[in-house]
């Protein structure tokens, strides 16, 4: 995403506040991966990965990596007590059964209805959806972490997605370097504004209409 390390960390730290003790959580590649760094080990959060593990832990020390124990991004991890290994059908069974409390994903576009587009830019970038559709549709709560605008300065929070969808009505919360926005039945609610931005700046950078939360008005 080309976002500064500091901003990426800030978004990840804010996202970590959405996690509570004992939750089952799947983190996507990119900024979402950083979220784990902000969650205390004694919370016993169980991190799930699509290729067959529930209960991944911190990165191993240099030289202690195991080539058969990586996260979904291919980077070496460890496991925590209570972890289990299984095949990919079990990994996705857990997702489709609705046992993921939260999945945190990156996005290209999110619509005011919570539609998510994060896997394809036709004619340009066609990586495939991997597990994104399963996660977006299956998890109890979907949190999107992304830059507020794209490289051309255009809002990624849109009235209607222009890119092919990953899943409809799936996003619950959007966290960017500018704001925290909740997807509600009434529309997008601006809940928090990040330093050094103002409410007006966030509204100006957001294509979709925003309802300003009472706590920001007061």
């Amino acid at each position, binding site marked *: 995403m080309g976002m500064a390390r500091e901003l990426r960390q800030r978004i990840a730290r804010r996202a970590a506040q959405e996690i509570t003790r*004992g939750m*089952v959580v799947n983190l996507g590649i990119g900024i979402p991966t950083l979220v784990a760094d902000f969650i205390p080990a004694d*919370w016993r959060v169980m991190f799930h990965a699509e290729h067959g593990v529930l209960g991944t832990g911190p990165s191993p020390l240099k030289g202690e990596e195991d080539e058969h124990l990586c996260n979904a991004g291919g980077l070496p991890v460890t496991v*925590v*007590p209570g972890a*289990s290994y*299984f095949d990919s059908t079990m990994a*996705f*069974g857990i997702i489709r059964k609705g046992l993921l409390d939260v999945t945190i994903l990156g996005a290209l576009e999110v619509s005011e209805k919570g539609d998510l587009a994060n896997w394809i830019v036709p004619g340009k970038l066609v990586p495939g959806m991997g597990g994104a559709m399963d996660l977006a549709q299956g998890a109890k709560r979907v949190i999107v972490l992304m830059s507020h605008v794209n490289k051309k300065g255009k809002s990624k929070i849109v009235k209607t997605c222009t890119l092919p969808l990953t899943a409809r009505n799936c996003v619950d919360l959007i966290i960017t370097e500018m704001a925290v926005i909740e997807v509600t039945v009434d529309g997008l609610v601006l809940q928090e504004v990040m330093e050094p931005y103002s409410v007006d700046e966030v509204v100006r950078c957001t294509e979709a209409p925003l309802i300003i939360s009472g706590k920001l008005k007061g």
Partner: protein
Amino acid sequence: MEQVSSKKKTVDQALVYIKDECRLMYGGFGGIGSPPTLIEGIFEKGVKNLHLIGNDAAFPEVGVGRLISNGRVKSMITSHIGSNPNSGKLMSEGKLDVSFYPQGTLAEKIRCGGVGLGGILVDIGMDTIVDDGKQRVEVNGKTYMLEPALTGDVAIVYAERADEYGNLIYDKTARNFNPLVAMAADITIAEVKEIVPRGALNPEMIATPGVFVDYLVESKGVNWTWAWQEN
């Protein structure tokens, strides 16, 4: 869901979830791998009008057989009731409604519910009684029966060892339907021979990840006599 504290419960605490009219899934094959302490608890509590979903009716006093024999069961979705003559008797008297499925189909229907799929296409039993009224679907020129997923209110399973997160390891042929029903119900209660701390199980051996398990109950062991012990 808060899954930090141990899932360990007393039998009474766990039985709160099993009420009259419960759609109750169970593990076990002829009683092998059925949870004796939970079944005893259900019997003692007086639960009735149960809708059982599992492989078979076991034997008259073995496994779920005891619940059936004592008239606590209103309906069964199963593959075989031949080893428990009380089931056949109740069925012919109109007191027990039984739906039969080929065993492999039943297992897959339950797994389907457990992994969040809508159903499977299967050809076992085509053009026999079990084909009656089934929706047919054609795929690549071949015809299959559509079998919808099965789910339940509560699943009761028997496992050899669990850790406090609810990860389960089964023992030999006592595994059978246990890992399947463990995934397929709203609430899963595992009766376990031994509950160990997190990290004490080999993570490669875990057959049911703890995320599927809601409550753990310690087993008091089998309180019935197996057919092979009777002579």
